[in-house]
């Protein structure tokens, strides 16, 4: 199958959506499909062979943080060229409501379009204002995917319609088979995420830390992620600051080894999460997980069966649960076992098959993707004269079914 994937955010900036698209593209290529990813990127950045640059992205404040987006005439032209050259069977747009490549592609394309909605931000005024503009573009999407039940609910509330839920994928074995690093063992708590982003919840963990250290003074907190390290520990009493170790930005390998080595992974995020891929990664690595009770997290953790939950933003609840877990090796072992079994459904083997099933469902009975040559007024009038209502009769049905027969069967199920 020829698949075009559209990434709305800069390829050179690490982020959840970008990683998801990278892994999805590589998974599909391994299965023998032809994949092309259109993504914003600086012209100098080295790109993997399957990525096509849509030009430099412009930093714009959007959705609570600075996002690098693509818009304007030049980007639209590049989108059209990519669609024209690609002759895709299906295109998969990520985050079609963000004012970037996704939306541009929606405007420019016709044919089977699949879209994944990653965010689940509360209904914003901008969204309501943009609704009449978005609607004609979103109408073209044949299949919508939401990354969690929570994301689906927001989608239904904001835009109407429906979506199937397919979670984000993780290469479970990569994490499960990572080597343990002894330096990160021995009553250690892990945290991975941006230090200076309050939504990631490090301040909550910092407030809870003194109480944990009061019971287990030998506890170490390992923090991986970028941001101002001095500012992060400011709220701690001086003598406790040494118990926090900053590892800076870590590679994927080190992240996996870290998750394999620690006793407890804490995800104190306070909001804005629609999925929680890091929890899946922690479960894959066999770490016991303690997370805030956000909807998305509760769903990933099977409502608390695969990892413990604490009341969001409640440092005391976090400290209490952490102390209990650190002192109870049996409970941690039980969580590990439950988590490792639960996490299989997030493996790329499962998730990839589901996404391919969506592709096959929408390409069944549809022509391939093309640039949208808008039907002219004259052509439509002529058709009306001939008595053929727009899109009405069964003729379109058979016309659109025909190409399916000549397409080679997809490699997998």
């Amino acid at each position, binding site marked *: 199958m020829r698949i075009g994937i559209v990434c709305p955010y800069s390829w050179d900036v690490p982020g959840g959506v970008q990683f998801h698209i990278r892994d999805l593209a590589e998974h599909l290529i391994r299965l023998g499909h032809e994949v092309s990813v259109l993504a914003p990127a600086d012209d100098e950045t080295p790109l993997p062979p399957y990525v096509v640059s849509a030009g430099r992205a412009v930093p714009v404040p959007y959705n609570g943080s600075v996002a690098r987006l693509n818009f304007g005439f030049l980007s639209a032209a590049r989108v059209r060229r990519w669609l024209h050259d690609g002759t895709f069977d299906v295109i998969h747009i990520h985050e079609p409501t963000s004012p970037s490549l996704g939306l541009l592609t929606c405007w420019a394309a*016709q044919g*089977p379009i699949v879209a994944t909605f990653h965010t689940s931000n509360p209904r914003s005024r901008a969204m309501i204002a943009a609704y009449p503009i978005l609607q*004609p573009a979103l*109408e*073209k999407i*044949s*299949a*919508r995917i939401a990354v*969690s*039940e929570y994301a*689906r609910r927001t989608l239904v509330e904001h835009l*109407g*319609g*429906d*979506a*199937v*839920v*397919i*979670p984000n994928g993780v290469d479970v074995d990569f994490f499960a088979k990572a080597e343990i690093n002894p330096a990160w063992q021995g009553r250690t708590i892990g945290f991975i995420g941006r230090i200076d982003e309050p939504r990631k919840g490090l301040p909550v963990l910092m407030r809870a830390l003194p109480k944990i250290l009061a019971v287990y003074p030998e506890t170490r907190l390992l923090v991986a992620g970028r941001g101002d390290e001095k500012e992060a520990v400011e709220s701690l009493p001086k003598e406790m600051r040494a118990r926090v170790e900053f590892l800076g930005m870590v590679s994927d390998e080190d992240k996996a080894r870290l998750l394999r080595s620690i006793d407890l992974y804490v995800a104190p995020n306070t909001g804005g999460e629609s999925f929680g891929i890091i929890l899946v990664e922690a479960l894959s690595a066999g770490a016991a997980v303690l997370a805030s009770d956000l909807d998305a997290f509760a*769903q990933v953790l099977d409502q608390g069966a695969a990892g413990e939950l604490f009341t969001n933003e409640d440092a005391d609840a976090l400290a209490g649960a952490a102390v209990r877990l650190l002192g109870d090796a049996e409970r941690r072992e039980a969580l590990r076992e439950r988590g490792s079994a639960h996490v299989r*459904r997030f493996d790329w083997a*499962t998730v990839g098959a*589901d996404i391919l*099933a*969506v592709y*096959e*469902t*929408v390409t*069944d*009975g*549809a022509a391939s993707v093309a640039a949208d040559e*808008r*039907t*002219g*007024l004259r052509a*439509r009038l002529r058709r*009306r004269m001939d008595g053929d*209502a*727009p*899109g*009405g009769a*069964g003729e*379109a*049905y058979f016309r*659109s*079914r025909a190409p399916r027969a000549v397409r080679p069967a997809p490699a997998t*199920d």
Partner: protein
Amino acid sequence: MTETLIWIVVAVVACALYLSWTAGRLDRLHTRIDAARAALDAQLLRRASVTQELATSGVLDPAASIVLYEAAHAARQAEEEQREVAESELSQALRAVFGEAAQVEAVQAAPGGEEAAGELAAAVRRVPMARRFHNDAVRAARALRRHRKVRWFRLAGHAPFPLAFEMDDEPPVALADRPGSST
């Protein structure tokens, strides 16, 4: 005078362009519904065929075979008006037979059963998917068709008012153990 006339012409042309664009939107939506309906038909047929194959293969006990064969046969032969009911009954029959993980394992243990169980699992997961995509397209088209501009200018032409496909498509738990994809 000429100026007013020019403005009127401009306004009329703008209106015409807008209506034409809306008709194009509607046209696209109808095409999308046709494609989604074709896909849904294909998935439903596929599910019924796999079920029938399993029912006649002798892997299952005679009672389960008869129940499944009956339901699958009825679903394939159903008239358009009876289709939703017949397909729902097939879902119920599948749930009744494959409610237990042991039954699925028994099928998988038989020669060629692994493949058959896999096919059935794929089919029962794709039916809700296809149905959701179809009904989503129907909802979008209905929303646009209810709009004043579409009704007054009869932009929908003679295309029939699109109807959602309502059925019970809950897959058997033992066959489709995925979070969310079944709801």
